[in-house]
């Protein structure tokens, strides 16, 4: 057995069913192993750009909860993965990135297609390995998947020199046990901390649950719902936590932060207890930290010790898996009712719901409303980055975790389309929608070819404002309308582009066309469908708390 074959064997042991990647000189022995009958159970998806391979692995991981795998050759192949790896570390996505490398003897000699991918990715991986002996491959793969998928998940890189992938592995030994002495997990909540938290909760009359990706990653939504209902606490879910709590539930406050709802931000402003679960007090949520939730004590439930007290001091911290901590909190907390607080929140919701001016033009929010209605909040939704991302998050009524795929921490334009495809591979029977912008879509549109060739049909709602909309919004609000580098013109004709790839393309220019177009797209299951929604380019995302400011400075609507 060669090193490449040992790699494939180990990947099968980890339950890998799909690899996204592109071959090349240093990766040839690995791709050769993937061509052999032993690898038949692995779906080998040839992408059109390695960045997309990394995002597909992320999309697969987010939708399935399993570890996603991407593969690239040395040098440019490996460096093309870098954005996806950086995205995965910031959003805690479990992926294993495998790179070919020049032969061991050539490392350090500036050989053809050599790049120090270990060094380049060191600050953005959870861990990385360069394989020096083929016999180590099974153990390294085992460790890599374990590290990627446990605790706070993240990307792990395995760099495999070409000679190692070709070398003879005498005996394939897959380790049963894993022992990594420098890696310890803190999954079980300490009962004393839970007790202390329950006491704070019992004393609170205005609690808010502020929940994020940690609840999604551990699929702790049922425990969260039970706790929220038991202690009668409204729930705001961050951009990474959408789907952790059902938006149609009366306790839902939708999203907090820069483009969060007014009522979520007001609730955080006025609450006396902030129960933060699987979140990291990111600046897009908190704005000016010294003005964030100033009246509240904080309980912080978090699996990564480094996040506790990092941005905000916690009065009680619970170092644990969100699921375990929430389960124990449900048991420890006494039932409570907060009628005054609930009334206040209901009043805020009434006073300032998400809204937009419906003036006869094609409004992006309207598209989201119809999409929400037709799919009844059940679709898997991937997005890119920009205004469309915020409208999608604000208006879609999420029901469960792993329904929502977005690039939060890195804010990576180009993430959405490949992520949607990765999700479709993970959940082939589900309806997968991509909500994207004309800027973002052009960063990975070459994957239309992959979607056709490998029959990975997704539905694309392209929010076309002929510009880099979010940047334009900032230039209009903060730079006196001085436009600089935001005009994308009317190029290309997206519907024709989709058709050129063998996909279905539809153009929508008026509100009346929205529903039929979405309905038509929902009926097509065997091909990717792209709807080019040419919406009102003047539309802004509201509410908005300008960067670094606080809820006092929240802008509700233009000129308000």
């Amino acid at each position: 057995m060669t090193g490449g074959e040992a790699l494939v064997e180990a990947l099968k042991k980890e339950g890998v069913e799909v690899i996204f990647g592109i071959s090349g000189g240093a990766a040839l022995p690995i791709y050769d192993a993937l061509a052999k009958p032993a690898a038949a159970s692995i779906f080998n998806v040839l992408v059109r750009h390695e960045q997309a391979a990394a995002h597909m692995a992320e999309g697969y991981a987010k939708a399935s909860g399993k570890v996603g795998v991407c593969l690239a050759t040395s040098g440019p192949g490996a460096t093309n993965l870098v954005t996806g790896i950086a995205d995965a570390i910031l959003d805690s996505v479990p992926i294993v990135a495998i790179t070919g490398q020049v032969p061991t003897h050539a490392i350090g000699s500036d050989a053809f297609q050599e790049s120090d991918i270990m060094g380049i990715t060191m600050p953005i991986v959870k861990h990385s390995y360069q394989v020096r002996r083929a016999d180590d491959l099974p153990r390294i793969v085992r460790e890599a998947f374990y590290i990627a998928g446990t605790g706070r998940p993240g990307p792990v890189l395995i760099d495999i020199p070409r000679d190692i992938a070709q070398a003879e592995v005498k005996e394939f030994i897959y380790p049963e046990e894993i022992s990594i002495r420098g890696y310890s997990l803190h999954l079980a909540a300490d009962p004393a901390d839970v007790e202390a938290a329950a006491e704070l909760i019992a004393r609170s009359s205005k609690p808010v649950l502020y929940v994020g990706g940690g609840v999604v990653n551990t699929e702790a939504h049922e425990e969260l719902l039970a706790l929220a209902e038991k202690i009668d606490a409204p729930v705001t879910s961050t951009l990474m936590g959408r789907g952790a709590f059902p938006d149609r539930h009366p306790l839902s406050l939708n999203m907090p932060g820069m483009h969060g709802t007014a009522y979520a931000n007001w609730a955080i402003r006025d609450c006396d207890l902030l129960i933060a679960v699987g979140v990291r007090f990111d600046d897009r949520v908190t704005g000016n930290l010294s003005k964030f939730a100033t009246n509240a004590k904080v309980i912080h439930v978090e699996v990564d010790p480094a996040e506790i007290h990092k941005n905000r001091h916690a009065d009680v911290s619970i170092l644990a898996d969100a699921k375990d901590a929430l389960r124990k909190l449900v048991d420890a907390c006494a039932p409570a009712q907060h009628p005054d607080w609930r009334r206040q929140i209901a009043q805020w919701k009434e006073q300032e719901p998400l809204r937009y001016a419906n003036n006869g033009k094609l409004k992006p929010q309207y598209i989201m409303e119809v999409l929400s209605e037709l799919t009844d909040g059940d679709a898997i939704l991937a997005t890119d980055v920009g205004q469309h991302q915020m409208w999608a998050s604000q208006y879609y009524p999420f029901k469960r975790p792993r329904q929502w795929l977005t690039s939060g921490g890195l804010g990576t334009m180009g993430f959405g389309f490949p992520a949607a495809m990765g999700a479709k591979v993970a959940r082939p029977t589900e309806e997968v929608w991509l909500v994207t912008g004309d800027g973002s879509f052009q960063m990975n549109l070459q994957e239309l070819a992959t979607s056709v060739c490998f029959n990975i049909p997704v539905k694309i709602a392209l929010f076309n404002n002929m510009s880099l909309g979010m940047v334009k919004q900032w230039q209009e609000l903060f730079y006196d309308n001085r436009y600089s580098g935001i005009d994308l013109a009317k190029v290309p004709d997206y519907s024709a582009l989709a058709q050129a790839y063998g996909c279905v393309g539809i153009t929508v220019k008026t509100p009346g066309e929205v529903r039929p177009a979405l309905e038509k797209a929902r009926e097509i299951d065997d091909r990717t469908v792209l709807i080019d929604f040419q919406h009102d380019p003047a539309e802004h995302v509201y509410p908005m708390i300008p960067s670094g400011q606080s809820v006092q400075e929240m802008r509700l609507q233009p000129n308000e």
Partner: protein
Amino acid sequence: MQNRASPQRKHTISVMVDNRPGVLARVSGLFARRGFNINSLVVSATQDPEISRMTIVSMGDDAHLMQVVKQLNKLINVITIFDHTEDDLVERELALIKVRATVDNRSEIMQLASVFSASIASISPSEETMIVEATGDENKIDAFLATLVKFEVLEFVRTGKIALVRGAKST
């Protein structure tokens, strides 16, 4: 509400790491990326051939130290970290100091050296130089260097700090 600021001071930590290539880069890279300063860093072998010890001195407040320790702990190759802020330590640095030593002042330098229990590592009478070797904690080395200033210090080199906790407690 926010992390309360505590005074800036030098913190000494011992970081036990896997003795593997690339680990030093991971540790020093983390300091650079997170904006943590390194006052000194010494890597050394330990009684266990698979483990190396890094003795790191970093300046900052207590919240800073907590972040340093927690972020280091996230590195898979970091096995354990000992924070010595509250420990009773034996701390040492080693310095080699090259001074201009003429026939006239040579004995004075040697006398000063003996006050600081420093030794003479080398004498080159023809070139009128001398290398003095001193060990001790940071203050002692600083003081010794200061007294040598009145002679001509041609160059010097000093190591970072190494440290062990007194008594049976293992570090």
